[in-house]
């Protein structure tokens, strides 16, 4: 390092000639992904790395889906590695080639919408219910009011009252987005789905219970799509193909652009319900 030879940086010298630039430089230094975005980037990389063996330039045997192997090719070690392994395992949760990236891309606006919509979404229905009541009263205000209609004037006072309650109503509803998945939640999500994934073959029923738990605890979780893929596979392993198909339909309806779409279709194709090896691989399973 030739650190000593480097001239002082502007934010150290606070050069008066460039003083107006300093706040902007400070701000520029702070630029980067939000915590949430960073969590998604890390998870996305882990997911993709776990299925990277089949991608060009990847190491290891093609088709090998062992996350540990993938991690070891990257010389990952130490405590960070255990975290990465967690993420890689999450990547292996769904198996197949996962382009988390496209999904994350789709998710960004959704998340933003999530954050803002509740106020708007709750206000909108209120507005809609108000509208019919309000428009007539508004026109009544300008149009000479026939005597018979004067009885309705109290409604004018009702309307603002209702609006007041409606805005008050948005208050509490705004809370959920604030309680929205924290960056740390992804660890909990991963742990839960990892358990679910591990149960798919030995006990699809337990896997389904765990995915249900995930759906309850992380209603707006980052890994909802992965959860659905696991659930669909568990339903297939259990032999409940119709239920799997129904869930897959719901999946495609909710996530039409999901990167896991291909995986779900492949699962349905690979598991025509009577695939013998899928039964042989589930020795402990007594479902059905």
């Amino acid at each position, binding site marked *: 390092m030739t650190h000593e030879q480097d001239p002082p940086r502007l934010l150290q010298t606070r050069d008066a000639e460039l003083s107006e630039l300093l706040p902007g430089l400070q701000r520029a230094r702070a630029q980067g992904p939000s915590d949430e975005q960073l969590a998604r980037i890390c998870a996305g990389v882990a997911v993709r790395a776990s299925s990277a063996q089949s991608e060009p330039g990847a190491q290891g045997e093609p088709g090998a889906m062992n996350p540990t192997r993938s991690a070891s090719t*990257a010389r990952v070690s130490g405590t960070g590695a255990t975290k990465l392994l967690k993420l890689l395992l999450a990547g292996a949760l769904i198996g197949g080639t996962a382009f988390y*990236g496209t999904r994350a891309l789709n998710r960004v606006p959704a998340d933003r919408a999530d954050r803002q919509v509740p106020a708007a979404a709750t206000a909108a229905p209120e507005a809609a219910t108000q509208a019919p009541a309000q428009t007539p009263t508004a026109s009544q205000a300008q149009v000479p009011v026939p005597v018979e209609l004067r009885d309705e004037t109290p409604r004018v006072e009702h309307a603002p009252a209702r609006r007041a309650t409606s805005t008050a109503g948005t208050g509490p509803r705004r809370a959920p987005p604030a309680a929205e998945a924290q960056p740390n939640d992804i660890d909990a999500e991963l742990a839960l789905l990892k358990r679910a994934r591990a149960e798919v073959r030995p006990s699809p029923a337990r896997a389904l219970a765990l995915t249900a738990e995930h759906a309850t605890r992380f209603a707006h979780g980052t890994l909802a799509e992965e959860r659905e893929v696991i659930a669909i596979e568990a339903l297939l392993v259990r032999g409940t193909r119709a239920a799997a198909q129904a869930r897959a339909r719901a999946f495609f309806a909710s996530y039409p652009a999901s990167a896991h779409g291909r995986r779900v279709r492949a699962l349905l194709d690979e598991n025509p319900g009577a695939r013998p090896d899928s039964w042989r691989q589930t020795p402990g399973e007594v479902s059905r």
Partner: protein
Amino acid sequence: MPDAPQLEFEPIMREHAAFVWRVLVRHGVVESQLEDVSQDVFLTLHRSLPRFEGRSSLRTFIYGICRRVASNHRQLAVHRREVITDALPEPPPVGDRAGDAFETLADKQSLELVQALVARLPDEQREVFMLYEVDELTMREIAETQGCSQNTLFSRLYAARKALAAELARLRATRRVA
């Protein structure tokens, strides 16, 4: 891969994500694509780490990946005919934006002022300036990334500072005095 450094990957991502983000922004990746392209960068890094010999700093290694990935991304965008970005970011119409930003200098404008003025610098000056003043790379690291001597970089950095100071002086004269 003999003696490949034992590196922990997730902390690496966390440590360098902001740097990657900024470099990608400067290399024309639009905001909506930043998460995805950042993933591409780290995935590439993940694969390349075994080949990383520690001869350069990890940051310069990552910077090289950013540049390649951003460039591929731009080409792919063109091939897909997606209007993600034309090429490198267009320098904004400096007169107005810089002037307005200069006037208010609110938090957000302060960044816009930097962006607007820096956008006017010649490419090689701009990159050195940003890598040094914002990303806080060492001159040696920048020399690795730009493939030129540190002396060249010093002169580029000083030229950039001088040009920016002149620009600010001009703005001061036109906006404040008037």
